[in-house]
């Protein structure tokens, strides 16, 4: 298939660049090389595509790494490629100083590994890099075919899981995951997700090189493939709150040669939810509203256990009403008890209010005898407030503490007088 050929070539070039450069820096981090360049995303695809669970990856890596480190690197000629199917394979790679090739080590336990060996033998023993390159292509494709699970996850969750498996890989894993996150948002566009379980496999298969029989050739170049991947991964991942964060991370980390990012609000569809654009917008709106309701819950006292918008709104309404009433009460009280206010008193008072929590007692020495104009003497009226519309039984405790009998009487009077004033007003 022509598209497949194109894919092959494209991938080969990228892989070449990746594989060739690492010879200068061989280390036990097999993924570090792949992190470079834009083909990184494709690499991440290949490095990640272990089983649906990561144990393979962990198991794949750990023995390999220890193996490569522990064993002597003898017999590193191309002849040993006959042993690729066994643990010597990574040794070979390391011996050749091509750490990039060590990513093949993860495929060691791959039964399809053996298939690739004869292919490898086809190459001359001289140029390992060549071998690696060509090997890599079928290798990766092979891996892609055999191991890509429907639950492929490129984003941070996969990366984190991998990172936990091996400290030596953790850095790379994080890198990979980060870059994988990059992959997941080459465009910041909102995407409609069409759940297709078959397509994930197909999206990786377009990178297949010649030996692969895989049917789908969706995208012909890696970026497009990444888009597909992103789509599929979005479909497939269950946890999507992370998706948003990953998208944000991806936006922060620079991408090389990727499609231009647009400033869309990247929204992920959760698994099993409708992916209509309308419903997505609805969901965003609902989440915003619920977030604000949570904030309000903190503000309004005693609303921790309340779940449900209607009840919460009721509580908020009651609270706002009670606060407004309190302001009225207090201003009424101020109207009666506060005839004089000098500048000094004002200053002291402001200092007192702002800087101390309770003690106005310290300054009371300055403010005595001002309550002369208090028209109501305590005890005349009983401490009931029948006329006061208390809308919520919770909140009276607050005003009750502040309002002594005097104030209650005062308010009562004020209430009556206010009604009286209404009638008097026009006259």
């Amino acid at each position: 298939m022509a598209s497949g050929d194109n894919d092959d070539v494209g991938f080969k070039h990228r892989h070449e660049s990746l594989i060739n450069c690492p010879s200068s820096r061989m280390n036990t981090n097999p993924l570090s090389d792949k992190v470079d360049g834009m083909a990184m995303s494709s690499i991440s695809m290949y490095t990640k595509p272990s089983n649906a669970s990561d144990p393979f990856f962990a198991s794949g890596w750990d023995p390999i790494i220890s193996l490569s480190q522990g064993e002597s690197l003898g017999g590193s000629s191309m002849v040993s490629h006959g042993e690729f199917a066994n643990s010597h394979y990574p040794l070979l790679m390391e011996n050749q100083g091509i750490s990039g090739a060590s990513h093949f080590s993860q495929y060691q336990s791959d039964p399809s590994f053996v298939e690739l060996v004869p292919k490898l033998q086809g190459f001359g023993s001289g140029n390992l890099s060549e071998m690696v390159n060509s090997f890599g292509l079928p290798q990766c494709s092979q891996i892609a075919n055999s191991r890509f699970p429907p639950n492929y996850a490129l984003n941070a969750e996969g990366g984190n899981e991998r990172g936990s498996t091996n400290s030596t890989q953790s850095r790379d894993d994080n890198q990979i995951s980060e870059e994988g996150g990059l992959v997941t948002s080459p465009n910041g566009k909102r995407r409609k997700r069409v759940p297709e379980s078959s397509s994930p496999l197909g999206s990786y298969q377009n990178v297949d090189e010649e030996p692969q029989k895989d049917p789908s050739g969706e995208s012909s170049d890696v970026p497009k493939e990444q888009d597909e991947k992103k789509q599929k991964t979005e479909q497939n991942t269950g946890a999507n709150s992370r998706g948003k964060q990953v998208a944000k991370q991806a936006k922060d980390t620079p991408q090389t040669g990727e499609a231009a990012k647009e400033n869309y609000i990247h929204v992920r569809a959760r698994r099993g939810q409708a992916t209509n654009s309308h419903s997505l917008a609805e969901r965003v709106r609902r989440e915003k509203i619920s977030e604000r309701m949570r904030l309000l819950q903190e503000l309004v006292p005693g609303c921790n256990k309340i779940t449900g918008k209607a009840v919460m709104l009721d509580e908020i309404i009651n609270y706002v009403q009670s606060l407004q009433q309190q302001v009225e009460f207090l201003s009424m009280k101020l109207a009666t008890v506060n005839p004089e206010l000098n500048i000094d008193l004002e200053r002291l008072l402001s200092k007192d209010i702002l800087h101390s929590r309770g003690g106005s007692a310290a300054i009371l020495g300055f403010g005595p005898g001002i309550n002369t104009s208090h028209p109501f003497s305590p005890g005349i009226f009983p401490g009931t407030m029948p006329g006061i519309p208390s809308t919520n039984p919770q909140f009276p405790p607050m005003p009750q503490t502040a309002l002594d009998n005097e104030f209650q009487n005062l308010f009562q009077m004020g209430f009556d007088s206010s009604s009286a004033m209404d009638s008097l007003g026009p006259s």
Partner: protein
Amino acid sequence: MKPQNLMNPTSSSSLKSRFTTRFLRALSRINARKQFTSTSSPREIFQRYRRIKVAADKSMAYSVRSKRRWSRVMLSKLRSRSSSNSFSSVRLRRVKKSSATKTGHEKEAKIKSGGDQEEADELRELVPGGEAMDLCNLLDETAHYIKCLNTQVQVMRKIVDFYSP
């Protein structure tokens, strides 16, 4: 630390101080007018009450500096109110009351139409300027409004406590 909400502690402390200074100044102005009569008739008390309430609202709205929609609306309301004299403002209140009863009937009719919406509308009436906002912004404004009301209540209560031992 002042018992403000957790949303923005730094701004709340300055909000409180701004409100306090403004309000105290307004209070002193109001009280300066009063000092001629030793005892006040209920009418005067009521008038002072009104003025003090207006001053409190005004100080609060000014302290917020029209960063919020509710403060802007409140300021415009207060300004239009103060431009007219108290007579017309009383009449305005009456008119508002009658219209409020009408909307009360309307609200009862609306009860069938989804309980959430009517509460949102009720909240809209409470929060100044809330009529023209969608629920999302309304909740934002409400949160800020609650915060400011809290500040107001606290400061005024402290003043009251100061003056009534």
